[in-house]
């Protein structure tokens, strides 16, 4: 059976690359600290020695739109292009060509259908910054095959926080049952409190610093009961109109299970707080 070597839940700040590669005189004051934290976080994936990455993200109206927006979707392709024109324009992100893993994509899709998650599937999926940002931060060589999973945290009505947790649990059981000697790591990205296109956007901190600290604590302790008792679509809206990306972090905790995280770090930036969480459900790498 496959080994789940690590589960990573991270925010995806699209300006990381630009902020940390700008000429020194143009760098934001926190750029060096940000880079140190990201490189330390990257090590938590490197030491897990993964062979494949199951990547969780959400299309930000790049490929998908409201004429046909999938609630949950998996890619099943030999390769994936990444980064859209308007992401390069706004964030300075480069394009990538990532390898896929069709066997695990197919096994995952069938396993999800068997468990009551009626996924959409794409055979021409282009990857956006919700997956490319964590590639840049946690695996910049972009040298591993990926299995991309997209969720709807973006175009309401949205699935419930519990559904994201349950989906994470289902993905975990499928990885556990996959008859393979390979080491699978799951890397997913979302947000803490976040406001986009509203009155609280681009402040000195995220729109709800109290929520951010509580959310990190829930992730650190694997406290799904605390999350499900407190986090609703309405409460997330109250923390910032784009906070629903937190549900992808709940999904990642679902893959790990209700256990303590092995690594937790965060960085308070303008506009939003970054969070970097890693679980080793099968024990820390030796």
């Amino acid at each position, binding site marked *: 059976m496959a080994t789940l070597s690590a589960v990573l839940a991270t925010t995806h700040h699209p300006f990381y690359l630009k902020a940390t590669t700008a000429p020194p005189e143009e760098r934001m004051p926190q750029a060096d600290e940000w880079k140190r934290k990201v490189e330390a976080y990257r090590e938590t994936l490197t030491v897990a020695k993964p062979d494949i990455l199951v990547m969780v993200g959400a299309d930000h*109206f*790049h490929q998908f739109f409201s*004429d046909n927006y999938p609630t949950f979707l998996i890619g099943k392709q030999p390769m994936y292009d990444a980064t859209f*024109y308007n992401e390069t324009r706004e964030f300075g992100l480069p394009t990538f060509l990532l390898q896929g893993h069709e066997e695990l994509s197919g096994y995952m899709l069938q396993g999800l259908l068997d468990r009551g998650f009626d996924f959409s599937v794409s055979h021409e999926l282009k990857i956006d910054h919700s997956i490319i940002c964590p590639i840049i931060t946690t695996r910049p060589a972009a040298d591993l095959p990926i299995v991309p999973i997209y969720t709807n945290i973006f175009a309401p009505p949205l699935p419930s926080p519990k559904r994201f947790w349950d989906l994470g649990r289902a993905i975990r059981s499928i990885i556990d049952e996959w008859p393979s000697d390979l080491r699978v790591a799951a890397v997913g990205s979302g947000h803490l409190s976040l*406001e986009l*296109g509203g009155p609280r956007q*681009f402040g000195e901190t995220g729109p709800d610093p109290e929520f951010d600290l509580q959310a990190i604590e829930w992730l650190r302790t694997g406290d799904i009961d605390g999350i499900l008792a407190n986090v609703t679509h309405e409460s997330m809206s109250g923390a910032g109109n784009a906070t629903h990306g937190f549900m992808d972090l709940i999904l990642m905790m679902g893959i790990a299970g209700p256990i303590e995280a092995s690594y937790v770090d965060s960085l308070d930036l303008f506009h939003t707080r970054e969070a970097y969480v890693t679980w080793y459900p099968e024990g820390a790498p030796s």
Partner: protein
Amino acid sequence: MSIYYVNKFLFQVDADPELLARYKADPAELVAWWETERGPWLNRVERTTWLGFTGTERRALVAHDYVTLFELGAHFFLSLTIFIAIYDADYAARSGPLSFQREYGANLAHWMGKEYPSVAL
């Protein structure tokens, strides 16, 4: 549900540098052209026959009026992204980084502490 059509406009124009340049240079021309010539098409052959803007929506798009678009329930990500593309560089050169984004937020300050208009369709 013509706010769907507003979102479709923002989605398609933001993703196409030629349309974006026209929307910046002459919004009235681009909005009028897109509403009848580009927006209705599902693909090169199939056309949706019943979509159009209301007068309020059309005026807000022509005026780059992101406050009204927010209040009509246009998707916040689409509005922010397209108006950053149009205004951010000019504002940053004149008034420093993020000055456009902060003005955008300040112009919506009357929504602070209130329930925002829904972006659900």
